[in-house]
């Protein structure tokens, strides 16, 4: 609650928060099927119909309503982005904490493994994973998550290492607090702020990555829709039916913009450095 209030008193946080909020509402509506038309329904007589009162954003190659598909697409893209970032964050937290806490051999092994993943070209890694498992929503979630795990691991490990030497952790050790207690209450709780920022920004990247994978035909599978898939499908129809590119294009840009603005605002709000200068 306090955080929400802080976001809304921050200039770019307000805009970013509003955009993300709006998109979440759209995504939920899309998921619940509250759309102008059935997003899967092919009105094949109205193929490639320009925007008008019936089809607010026109129709696609199959005569499906673009506005409805856009709503479904936003929910799909958000699911992919949220799920993959959540997975990567969880994996990153576990690995980063383990590396920071145990140090030595554990640290070396975990971080070298992360180096391997980082050094592996990301899109090719995703491509291989998808080719092995077969494409689909959850495969792209997994692929994006694996690509992001090393980043989150680093984001967690750095602060965790410095938290580990903080006085309150030393204090906990003098009481003989258990490892789990220290890890969960002293490290994890304090990692929430930097992670929140990272997660928000990663969500923006998640949307972009989903779009890139869909462009290569590896992301969301038809007839479902995602922002990236809509963009990818529009490319050969760009001249015949520009609305197929314009609406999802604007939607993805504004969506990413929203997450970026929100991330920046959260960084300002949660980062003690900027808080100090604001005080």
């Amino acid at each position, binding site marked *: 609650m306090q955080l929400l209030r802080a976001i809304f008193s921050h200039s770019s946080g307000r805009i970013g928060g509003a955009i993300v909020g709006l998109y979440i509402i759209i995504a939920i509506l899309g998921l619940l099927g509250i759309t102008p038309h059935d997003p899967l329904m092919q009105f094949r007589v109205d193929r490639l119909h320009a925007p008008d009162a019936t089809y607010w954003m026109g129709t696609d*190659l199959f005569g499906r309503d673009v506005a409805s598909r856009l709503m479904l697409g936003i929910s799909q893209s958000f699911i992919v982005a949220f799920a993959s970032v959540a997975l990567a964050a969880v994996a990153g937290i576990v690995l980063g904490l383990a590396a920071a806490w145990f140090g030595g051999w554990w640290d070396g092994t975990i971080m070298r493994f992360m180096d391997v993943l980082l050094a592996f070209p990301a899109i090719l890694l995703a491509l291989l994973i998808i080719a092995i498992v077969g494409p689909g929503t959850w495969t792209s979630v997994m692929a994006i998550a694996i690509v992001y795990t090393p980043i989150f691991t680093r984001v967690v490990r750095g602060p965790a290492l410095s938290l580990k030497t903080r006085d309150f952790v030393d204090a906990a050790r003098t009481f003989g607090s258990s490892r789990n207690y220290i890890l969960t209450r002293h490290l994890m709780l304090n990692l929430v702020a930097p992670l929140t920022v990272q997660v928000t920004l990663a969500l923006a990247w998640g949307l972009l990555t989903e779009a890139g994978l869909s462009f290569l035909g590896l992301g969301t599978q*038809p*007839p479902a829709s995602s922002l990236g898939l809509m963009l990818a499908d529009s490319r*050969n129809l760009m001249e015949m039916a520009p609305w197929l590119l314009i609406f999802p294009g604007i939607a993805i840009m504004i969506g990413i913009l929203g997450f970026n603005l929100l991330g920046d605002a959260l960084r300002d709000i949660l980062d003690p450095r900027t808080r100090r200068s604001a005080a």
Partner: protein
Amino acid sequence: MGQSLMKKFATSVAFAAALGAATAVVPASAETLRMAWSQDATGLDPHKQTAFSSLRLLELVYEPLVRLNADLEIIPALAESWEFSEDGKTLTFKLDADAKFQNGEKVTPADVKASFERVLDEATGAAARANFTSIESIDTPDETTVVFNLSQPDVPMLTAMTGINAAVVPASEIEAGTIGTKAIGSGPFKLDSWEPNQKEVLSANPDWAGGEVKVDGIDISVLPDETAILAALRTKQVDFALINDPLVATLVPNEASLELSRTPVLAYHVLQLNPSREPMTEQAVRQAISCAIDRQDVLDTALLGEGAVTGPLTMPAYRSDPGALFCYERDVEKAKQLMADAGYEDGFSATVIAATGEPPTAAAEAQVIQSQLAEIGIKLDIKMMELNVYVDTWLKGDFDMAVALNGGRADPYSMYNRYWTKDGNLQHVANYIDDTLDSLMQEGRVETDFDKRKEIFAKFETHLAEVSPWIWLYTGYTYTAQQKNVKGFVPSPTGTLFGLTEVSVGE
């Protein structure tokens, strides 16, 4: 302010100049044809390569004994003439005495013998070998004669010999083991360089026995994105281009300086059912699917109408009016009835596989079919696969249904024996054994009289459409786009680019 404006102006001019220079530096050579395609050859061994993208390159470099013209009639290539013996068990070719390989050597019967022996040698790994297993031995009685002795009469084999997989290569190169690394054929063009997935440089072969080539050479660029090909055509960077995606092709005529030519091809779009899987084991279910699909609607939507609904036989000589085939007029009521008869009035769920981008319309076809089948309660799950994964899955027969674009042949037997005869190589993919189909295929194989063959295959087609192991949809077009100053290209239903030998680039 004024100064910074000037600066901005200067940089934008420089930028425009850089872009302009990029297009202007290489003037359009009147003699060399600049060409683009999106899919490149995958290899140079004419006997091994089966990908269409490889064959259409190799057809410019290598020659078979005979080739097909635009009407799919067999015409001379390396062979001046040929004839079957009375019993149909010997096939004799007379070679063109002028034919020379690009290394200067004459094309001799020994080269022909060596080439076919190479195809037949299992160690070569030539997939086309299956077409030539009737060959028992090859004789070379004189300087220009080659005699194939067959174990059984095999009419379709002559058609198979028109393919580049039966190309004649120099025996010396076979010896040296350089087939596939150096392209030395007897065809109209020499391959000067090949950088896979990037470009080919071809130059006209002045010694080509088939006539004179009108251009000095062909520079082929690989532009993987077809919208980029269109952009390159528009800006006159390319004279001639191959286009796969009908969505892109339909934009070409909008441009005044461009011409689009399209030719119906033999390859057919098909929804393959797997009759070994429940409930496609039921003929009624398969027929219901056939009745539920509106082929014209799929065509209109996925290909923007660019094609023609077809039955199993796509070659003009054998093609019939598809309207006469089983349920080619959509009949949802009948479909529902058939489903009910088979005990599936509530429908069922199945997965359909399709390859990503191959053909470019695969995903769209799958989606329209999905939507049409939903009307009779069949819930389709679409699984898009990377091409190789798809091929692997397809070859294992590991699918409920598959959206496919299968290659066609000029001869119905060559086209279908692999699927619909009992010992067909891909019988395990078709998964459908039918005595009628098998016996009709065998009849067609040995019959040398065209009219009788046509009758046999018409029966075959009607039966195949009725038992509906697959749902044949339509054939599309092969598209070439060219600048208006490019003249003389003759397209062919096989998709060959051999017509480039007649092309000239005007001013």
